[in-house]
Structure formats: C-alpha cells, structure tokens
C-alpha cells in the first residue's frame, strides 16, 4: 500500500516560514492499493488530496477517527464530495445520543458552512463505527476506541501484506502513574501490536505534557515507549503542536535520540511524505 501524508499538524492549521518543512495542514492521510483509496481524517490537509489520482472505481472512503474540528474541517473543501459521479463513504464514530449524520451536520450546515451535508452532490453513504471490523476493497480495517475526549477511534489497516496503524489523537499515559508497562492496560495496544508502520500522536514535549494532562494527547517520549511496547517497526511522530516550529520539532526529536536507544525507526511525520509499505 502507498501512504501519503496530506497533513500532520494538530489542533489548527498553521502557516509561516518556520513550519514550512513539516507543514501546517491538519490531519489527513491518503492510503491506496490496487486502485482503491482511503483518506484517514478530513483535516485541512484534505485539500492537498484534491490532486490525487482518480480512483478506479469512482469510490472513495473517508475514515474519521473523531469529529474534532482539526479532523473534519477539510471536508467542505474536498472536491469529490461535490462530484455527482463519485460514491463517497464516510466512516466515523457516533456518540451515545447523536448519529454520525447529526454530528457531521453540525459543521456541514449554516452558519458554519453554506452547504448542508444532505445537499452534497456526491453519492454519500455514512457508516457508524465503534469497535468494528470491516473491509474496503483490498483493505481490512479494524477500528477501536482509544483514550481521547469524546468518541474517538484509532485504525489498524491491513492490505493482507502489511499493517498500518493510525492513532493521531491519543493519550495512553492518562492517569496518576503515567504510561503503564502492562499491555493489557494500555489503550490502543491491540491496534498498534507489531504494526509495520504507525502514525501516532506526539504533540508535546515531556515538560509540556505535565501541564496538559487530560487534554487527550501524548508526549513524544510516551509515544516512543508505547510504540516500543507494541513492537512497532516504524513510527511516524505526528499531530504536531501548532506552536512548534520546524526547529522545535527537530530539537525534540534529537532529544529523544539522545535519551532513548530504540532499535526501530522513528521520525517526524511531514506533509507530502510518501511511503510505500
């Protein structure tokens, strides 16, 4: 499968010369195999996916981890949603009281957006997911709830050859004692176990995390420990804090290289990055 990072910033789109290298668009990842395309999350990076190749089957699947603004704000600017020939499937979590349609409509309706969700010209199909397993073309997808405020899932996606795990918003270290060493008590462990590639939340430095416990995100250091415990082979550190410049991110990564001697490859997720898995 081919993976393209369309946006890896967290919280809010960010611009400026100091973030040019890693990019300022919020969460969106493109996956493709055998002419099938998945988009993971619909952050502002989704606009970059407007230039993607046409799917063979005129079908696109958008998998949403959750409905925070930085993960859906690109939907209204994604051209295939306005193409009557396209069949679009959106998969995402409902809440205890509101359907996925109702929750998405909160954004895709006036006054926040001029077009109603129901008026989008594409052939739209919504699928509510929780701890689910489903197939899309060659992809086997597992979604599972993870620790983050509001209904939030992570994804484990396999093309029957390789496994890609995507948990962009996740705080497995939440609690008095921080990240547990026991996998049975580790949120997201089953999604991450032995993944060939994982993109995971690494928004904060360890010092920042102490001030932001409970906000739903991870420190870079906790993410490294989590990936090591799960046996991940290649880790992309993502959901970059909007306040972190390229220089800040590289300093944080250097600090991790000095403090931790992990044998697996880990690097910063970067807008435009392409990986053939």
């Amino acid at each position: 499968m081919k993976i393209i990072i369309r946006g890896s910033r967290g919280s809010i789109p960010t611009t400026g010369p100091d973030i040019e290298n890693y990019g300022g668009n919020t969460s969106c990842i493109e996956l493709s195999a055998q002419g099938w395309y998945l988009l993971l999350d619909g952050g502002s990076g989704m606009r970059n996916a407007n230039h993607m190749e046409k799917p063979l089957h005129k079908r696109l699947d958008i998998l949403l981890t959750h409905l925070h603004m930085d993960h859906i704000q690109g939907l209204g600017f994604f051209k295939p949603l306005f193409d009557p020939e396209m069949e679009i499937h959106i998969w995402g979590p409902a809440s205890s009281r509101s359907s996925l349609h109702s929750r998405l409509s909160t954004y895709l309706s006036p006054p926040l957006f001029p077009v109603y969700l129901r008026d989008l010209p594409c052939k739209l199909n919504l699928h509510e997911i929780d701890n689910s397993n489903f197939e899309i073309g060659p992809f086997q997808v597992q979604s599972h709830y993870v620790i983050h405020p509001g209904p939030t899932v992570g994804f484990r996606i396999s093309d029957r050859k390789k496994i890609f795990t995507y948990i962009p918003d996740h705080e497995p270290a939440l609690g008095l004692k921080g990240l547990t060493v026991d996998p049975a008590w580790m949120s997201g462990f089953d999604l991450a176990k032995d993944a060939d590639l994982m993109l995971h939340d690494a928004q904060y430095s360890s010092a920042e995390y102490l001030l932001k416990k409970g906000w739903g995100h991870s420190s870079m250091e906790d993410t490294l420990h989590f990936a090591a415990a799960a046996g991940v082979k290649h880790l992309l550190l993502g959901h970059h804090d909007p306040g972190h410049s390229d220089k800040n991110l590289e300093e944080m990564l250097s600090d991790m290289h000095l403090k931790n001697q992990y044998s697996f490859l880990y690097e910063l997720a970067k807008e435009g990055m392409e990986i053939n898995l």
Partner: protein
Amino acid sequence: MAAHEIEIILNRQLADCLSIPVFITDTDGNLIYYNEPAEIILGKKYEEAGEMPVSVWGNIFKPIDENRNALLPEDLPLVKTLRNRKPYHKTFFIESLNGKIEKISVTSYPILGRPSRFIGAVALFWDANNE
C-alpha cells in the same frame, strides 16, 4: 492477552486516584482490578495477586446482616449489578477471614460503553462503622 476496553482502563485510572476501596470486575464477576485501599480489605496486593476468579475473591469475606445471618449472593449490590446491568447500593456487614466484623456500604454500577456494550462492573466500599 488482549488489552482491556478503554472504559475499563479509565475506571482503573480513576480508582488509582481515589482513597476509597474500588473493585473492578469483568462481566462474569471475576476481579480484574482493585486499588490500594481495596488491598487492605482483601489482604492481598494487586501487584502480587493480580486478577482473581469470582470463586476466589467472593470467599475472602462473608457478607452478613445485623443478626449475623449470611446474606444470599443475589442480595448483594455487585451481584445484582452484574445480573441486571443497573446500579445498586446496600449497607451490611462483612466478616473477614480473621473473624473481624465491619459495617460497610457498597455502591455498584455497570460499565456500559458505547453503543450499549456491557463491559464489566465497579463496586465501591464505604466505611459505615460510624453511621
């Protein structure tokens, strides 16, 4: 072993922060976590004993009424919660293995995840000796 559901994990994290005894069970009543204050009641450390089948931890203390008559399991809050998936509360006495009798109140609630998934139950023990 598969990881526990996040609703269970978050209940454990909460229990870790509380000064009252908290017991967390799976849907069959097997004890999957208890916090430090609960260790005093059980006489066992979680780090050492780990999880306990219902047949083991259900016999560590004997629930009795004010006349020292044994209470039926089906009258106990946690057993009712596991059966009916509803919260319950009851004040009664427990006799530990060393014969010590304590008056306690137990509040139990089911862990119901989205969407309507019954995942386990929690029991909180309150010291009722001064009531």
